[in-house]
């Protein structure tokens, strides 16, 4: 554990290197925030999978239409978005105070609050709590925070079996696989693949199981019911934690969340510190924004709220683990901190032309898609996820749908600039993957361009190859010509460009486009 001296941070430039006075990033070697391969490499692999692209296209098209329909029902949708944004910004500006309030309120109601500097510490805390409860098995409700910190691995190392109970998470877990979408983690699996996984892994299903979704859901119900009825420890995340009242809130569809937060004697909730909201009334905003943006429903089937311990009802031992793991590092960036406003609805994934073609695995983090591209690098430090801020065509669709109005294109450009700036000051070049990605995203953004590029180059070289910058100028030039997009500060990129090429043969550098008009979502 590094020692934090609590010194005031330098007012320095965004992108200044991490110094001891700046909050640390999420540690390496634990959890799921970093990719094994840079985005362009992983994306190329995904692009070769036609089945995956069909599944993704069908899924994202369906969810987009559902979302649009239920959003258009509300006459005050824009007012709700504005309120959501304002509440989140105010929360971040006073985060220490709200977390303190939350702690007091939870404690007053018989709950216990724990603080975790990072993934390792959170894993240790949860493991110790499970052991103290005398359990060797836990039931889990789908939670990005626990996936982020690799909690299941930490528990397994201590001999504790963690059972995922969300149907999609169960499919992923039994398939020894990784989630590929925030909301529909098994979006990359079709029904016959799921049937095969169940038959192979469940051990207690009839060999006659069909691939009818209703039959598969029934098999999951039977498989998990025994676990629910006997579980003594439940583990959850939280969509919201209300500072004013100490109330935690889990939003779900299947009822597995209700099972996990109701039936066990001990409940452990792992919540990122950014999930606190100031007041009870704020739920009236977010419980409208989230379901309509997320599943495209007016309301999700089940939402559970609990405040500490309720005698005679539900878990009598209630814990809340507040997790940093790089969030304070994001908070220290005046522009980047907006990524912490995210309520994980996944609307930005479903509208993203890059996500629709690559799927979530290519992003290498539990946070895929546009939000992942701006959140993961801030949690890990940009150098560890350097290609992600380039995994976008900056088309702006994500900003238009975001229920809390996170200006993701602006954040992407900001992080690209930070990356280049950091590299310049440390006399390194921006990674080849990052620059390659600028070209790749141009191709990914449009099926026609992609097809043309693929037929033009059977070897796939247009998407770049590690370390081969020279293959890139044509698509990169096209990108710089064609995109009406926000751009990084021109000097650093141009300086780098000239140092590499000595002329403008790659076309005007992005900084030459000064005519961008600010996107407006009004």
């Amino acid at each position, binding site marked *: 554990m590094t020692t*934090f001296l609590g010194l005031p941070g330098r*007012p320095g430039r965004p992108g200044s290197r991490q110094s001891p006075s700046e909050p640390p990033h999420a540690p390496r070697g634990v959890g799921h925030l970093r990719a094994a391969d840079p985005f362009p490499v992983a994306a190329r692999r995904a692009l070769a999978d036609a089945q995956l692209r069909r599944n993704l296209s069908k899924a994202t098209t369906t969810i987009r239409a559902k979302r649009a329909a239920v959003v258009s029902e509300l006459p005050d949708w824009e007012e709700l978005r504005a309120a959501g944004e304002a509440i989140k910004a105010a929360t971040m500006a006073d*985060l220490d105070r709200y*977390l303190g309030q939350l702690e007091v309120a939870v404690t007053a109601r018989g709950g216990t609050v724990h603080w975790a500097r990072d993934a390792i510490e959170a894993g240790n805390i949860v493991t110790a709590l499970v052991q103290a409860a005398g359990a060797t098995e836990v039931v889990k409700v789908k939670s990005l925070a626990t996936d982020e910190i690799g909690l299941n691995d930490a528990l397994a190392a201590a001999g504790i079996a963690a059972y995922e109970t969300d149907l999609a998470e169960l499919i992923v877990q039994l398939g020894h696989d990784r989630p590929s979408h925030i909301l529909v983690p098994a979006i990359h699996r079709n029904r016959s693949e799921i049937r095969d996984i169940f038959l192979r892994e469940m051990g207690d299903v009839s060999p006659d199981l069909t691939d009818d*979704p209703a039959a598969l859901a029934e098999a999951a119900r039977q498989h*998990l019911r025994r676990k629910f009825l006997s579980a003594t420890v439940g583990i959850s995340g939280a969509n919201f934690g209300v500072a004013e009242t100490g109330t935690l809130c889990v939003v779900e569809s*299947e009822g597995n969340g209700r099972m996990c937060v109701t039936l066990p004697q001990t409940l452990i909730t792992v919540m990122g510190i950014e999930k606190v909201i100031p007041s009870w009334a704020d739920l009236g905003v977010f419980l409208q924004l989230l379901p309509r943006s997320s599943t495209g429903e007016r309301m999700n089937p089940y939402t559970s709220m609990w405040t500490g311990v309720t005698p*005679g009802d*539900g878990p009598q031992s209630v814990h809340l683990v507040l997790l940093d793991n790089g969030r304070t590092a994001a908070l220290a960036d005046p522009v980047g901190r907006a990524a912490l406003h995210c309520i994980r609805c996944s609307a930005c994934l479903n509208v993203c032309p890059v996500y629709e073609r690559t799927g979530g695995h290519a992003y290498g983090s539990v946070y895929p898609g546009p939000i992942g591209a701006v959140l993961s690098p801030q949690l890990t430090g940009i150098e560890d996820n350097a290609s992600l801020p380039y995994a976008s065509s900056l088309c702006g669709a994500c900003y238009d749908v975001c229920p809390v109005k996170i200006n993701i294109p602006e954040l992407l450009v900001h992080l690209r600039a930070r990356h280049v700036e950091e590299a310049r000051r440390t006399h390194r070049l921006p990674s080849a993957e990052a620059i390659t990605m600028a070209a790749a995203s141009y191709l990914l953004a449009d099926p026609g361009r992609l097809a043309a590029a693929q037929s033009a180059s059977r070897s796939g070289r247009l998407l770049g190859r590690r370390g081969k910058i020279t293959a890139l100028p044509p698509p990169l030039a096209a990108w710089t010509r064609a995109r009406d997009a926000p751009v990084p500060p021109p000097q650093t990129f141009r300086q780098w460009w000239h140092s590499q090429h000595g002329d403008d043969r790659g076309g005007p550098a992005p900084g030459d486009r000064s005519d961008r008009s600010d996107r407006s979502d009004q």
Partner: protein
Amino acid sequence: MSARDEVLARIRAAARTGAGKAGTASSPAAPSPGPRYRTRSELAGPQLLELLASRLTDYRALVHFASAATLADEIGAALQRRQARRIVVPPALRLPLPSFVTAISDTRPFLSPAGLAAVDGVVTRAAVAIAETGTIVLDGSPGQGRRAISLVPDYHLCVVDAGQVVHLVPEAVARLSAGRPLTWISGPSATSDIELERVEGVHGPRTLEVVLVSG
């Protein structure tokens, strides 16, 4: 330094370097103009009930209307259709149940989860219902009982009084008490995890039936 103090110190340090557009922690709070989204209903009573019924039905709940005079008949008919014989009920349900059911009151010693799984269903009241979203909220009052009783059985019959129905989500939030364990229910349990095909009922009650009582 404890983890708590360290995380809080990091936040304060970040606030100093990171305070951007959002202002700083020390800036005076802007006067609040009050919410600009809808917080009050525009609908009258009968319209509210119609909207609630249509939204509940849209999410595959079964809905019936009743008056005080016909309530017992509606409840009896629903339980008969369901062939429900053993029913768990909260400690103070105060509703007329047909003679063919055995009502098990959920008082101490409570039924175990396995015991709850063995009954034919549960009958409860509600705290609030939200017409615009087709949502019923339970708050654990004596007419609704522990959260587990409306979760484990496969059938949930919920009786909602007209006076409990609001139009908007913020109206419901204002009526509810944070101190109570809350369950918001919008249609029966569902999943779309397999090729986005909606399937009713994974873990919660697979059938939700609502009786709306007015007059």
